C-alpha cells in the first residue's frame, strides 16, 4: 500500500519536474522573442552606416591593404590630399573618381582620370551603379564595397 502511494507520488513529482523544465524553456522562448522584436525596431530606427571600402591591394600602402574605410554619402578618390579618400599611388590621378550614395544605391563616376576607373575589372566610361561586393580599382589600388 505504501509502495503504491510512493510510486504515485514519484510519478507526480517526476511529471512536475519535466513540466518545470518545459516551463523554463517556454520562458526562454518568450525572452528570445521579445529580444528579437526589440532588435528589429532598433534596426529600423537607426539605419546608420551606408557602406565601407575594404582595401584589397595597395602597393604603396596608403590606404593600407587589409584596412577598411568608412564611407559618407559623397566620397572623392584621388592623389590630392584634399580628397576624402586619399590614395598614394603613381597611377592614380589628382582627382580620380567620385563614389556617391544616391537614393538606395552606390554609384561611381570617373573624374577624367588618366588611367581610368575599373569596376570588377571593366573600365567605366559613365556613372555605374555598384552593389555590395563589387570591386573598384583605381590605379594599382583594389578595393571592395562592403556593407
Amino acid at each position: 500500500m505504501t509502495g503504491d502511494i510512493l510510486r504515485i507520488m514519484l510519478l507526480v513529482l517526476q511529471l512536475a519536474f519535466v513540466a518545470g523544465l518545459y516551463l523554463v524553456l517556454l520562458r526562454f522562448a518568450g525572452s528570445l522573442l521579445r529580444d528579437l522584436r526589440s532588435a528589429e525596431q532598433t534596426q529600423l530606427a537607426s539605419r546608420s552606416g551606408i557602406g565601407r571600402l575594404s582595401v584589397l591591394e595597395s602597393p604603396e600602402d596608403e590606404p593600407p591593404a587589409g584596412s577598411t574605410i568608412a564611407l559618407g554619402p559623397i566620397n572623392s578618390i584621388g592623389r590630392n590630399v584634399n580628397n576624402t579618400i586619399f590614395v598614394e599611388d603613381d597611377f592614380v590621378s589628382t582627382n580620380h573618381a567620385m563614389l556617391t550614395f544616391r537614393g538606395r544605391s552606390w554609384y561611381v563616376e570617373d573624374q577624367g582620370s588618366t588611367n581610368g576607373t575599373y569596376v570588377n575589372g571593366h573600365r567605366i566610361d559613365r556613372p555605374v551603379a555598384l552593389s555590395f561586393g563589387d570591386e573598384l580599382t583605381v590605379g594599382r589600388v583594389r578595393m571592395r564595397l562592403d556593407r
Partner: protein
Amino acid sequence: MRITWRGVEFRLLLPILLLVPLGFVITNIALTNAFEPGPLHLALGYVALIVGAHLSLVAFGHRGDQLILPAVGAMGGIGLIMLNRLPQDLAGTAALGFELGMAATQLLWFGVGTVVMLVIAIGLRDDGILRHYKYTWAAVGIGLLAATLILGYEVNGARLWIDLGPVSVQPGELLKIVLVIFLASYLAETRTLLTDARMRIGFLAIPPLPYFLPMLVLFGAVMLIAVALNDLGTALLFFGTFLTMLFVATGRRSYVLIGLVLFVAGAFVAYQLFGHVQLRVEVWLDPFADPLGAGFQPVRAIYAFGRGGIFGEGLGQGLVTLGGGLTIPYVHTDFIFTAVAEELGLLGAFALLGFSAVLVFRGLRIAALARDDFGGLLAVGLTASLGLQTLIIIAGNTKLIPLTGITLPFVSYGGSSVLASFMMIGLLLSISHRSAIGADTEAAK
C-alpha cells in the same frame, strides 16, 4: 560601477533553482524507497553558487547577456542531478583530507569554474591581451599539446591526461579556447585579404595561399597532434570550429567546400591507417556484431534509450548498475546524455537540447552585436565549439555518427571540461558586456 538589476536573468533562474532540489528529492525518494527527501546539501550548494554568480554580475553592473547564465544553470543542474544519482564512487577526489564523491567533486569544479567565469566576465575590460598576442596564444596551444604528448598518460587508448599531483587535467580542453582566440585574432586581421579570391578553377575560388599559410600550418600541426594523441572527437571539434569561423569571416562557401573535401580525405586516410578508427566505424555500423566486446557500450546505450521511452523511467529508477558494474561504462562522462534520456525520457532529453540551443542562439546573437570583427569572430568560435561539442557527443550517443569520447558541456563529469566551458561562457559574457557599453556611449552622443 553601478548596480544593474538583471531582471530577465533572475526570473529565468528562479524556476531552475527550484527544479534542482526537486530533482534531488525525487532521486532520494526513489533510491531509498521511503518518504525521505534525503541530504540536499549538494543541491542547495548549487543553488547558492548560481545565485552568487547572479548577484556578483548584478553588483558589478555587468551588462552582458541575461539568458546565458540561466541556460548554463539549467544544463549544469540537470548534470548534477544525474551525477548525484549515479554511484558516487565512480570518480572523486580525496585531496586536502576530504573524501568527496563524484557529485560533490563536480560541484567543487562548478564553483571553481563559476569564479573563473566571473573573473573573466567582469575583469576582462579590454580584449587587447587576447587580440594582440595571437602568436603567443598559438605558442601556448602548441606547448599544451606538446606537454600532453610527452607527459600525458593514456586513459582508454587516448592520451589526454596530465597528472598534476592532486588533480589530473586534460590540456585539450584549454587548447580549444586558445585555438579559438588565435583564429579569431588572425581572421579578424586578414579577413578582407582572405576573401579576395582572384584565382578560380571553374566555379571554385582558390584561396590566396600566402595569407592562409600561417593559419594552415598551425592548424594542421594541431590536427596532426590531436590525431596522433588518438583524440578524434577533439580533432573533429577543432575542424568544425575552424570551418565555421572561416566561413563567418570570409563568407565564402567554396572554402567550406574545400574544407569538407579535405575532411573526407583526412577521414579516409585515418580510417586506412588506424585500427581503432576502423573499429569505431564497424561498431557504429553494427554494434550487435560483437555485443559483449566492442559493441558493449553502444548496445547498452541503445537499450537505455529504449527503456527511457518518451516519459523516462523516472529519476533514480533507471537501470544504472547491473550485476555489480555499470550498465553503460563511462555513463558519467561520455554517456551522460544516455542516462538523462533513460531517466527523464525523450521529453527530458529534448529539454536539455533546448537549453543547449538557447545557449548557441544567444552566443550567435552576441557575435552579431559585437563591436568589432575580433569580438564577433571570438563569439562565433566559442559558440560553435560549445554547440558542436554537444552535437558530436549526442550524435555519438544516439548512434547517428561513430562515437568519439568527448564530454557534454556542463553536464558530463569532468573538471577540465567544466572549467573550460565556464571560461568560454565568461568570454562570451565579457564580449556582450562590451557591446552593451558601446551601444550606450553611442546613444549618448
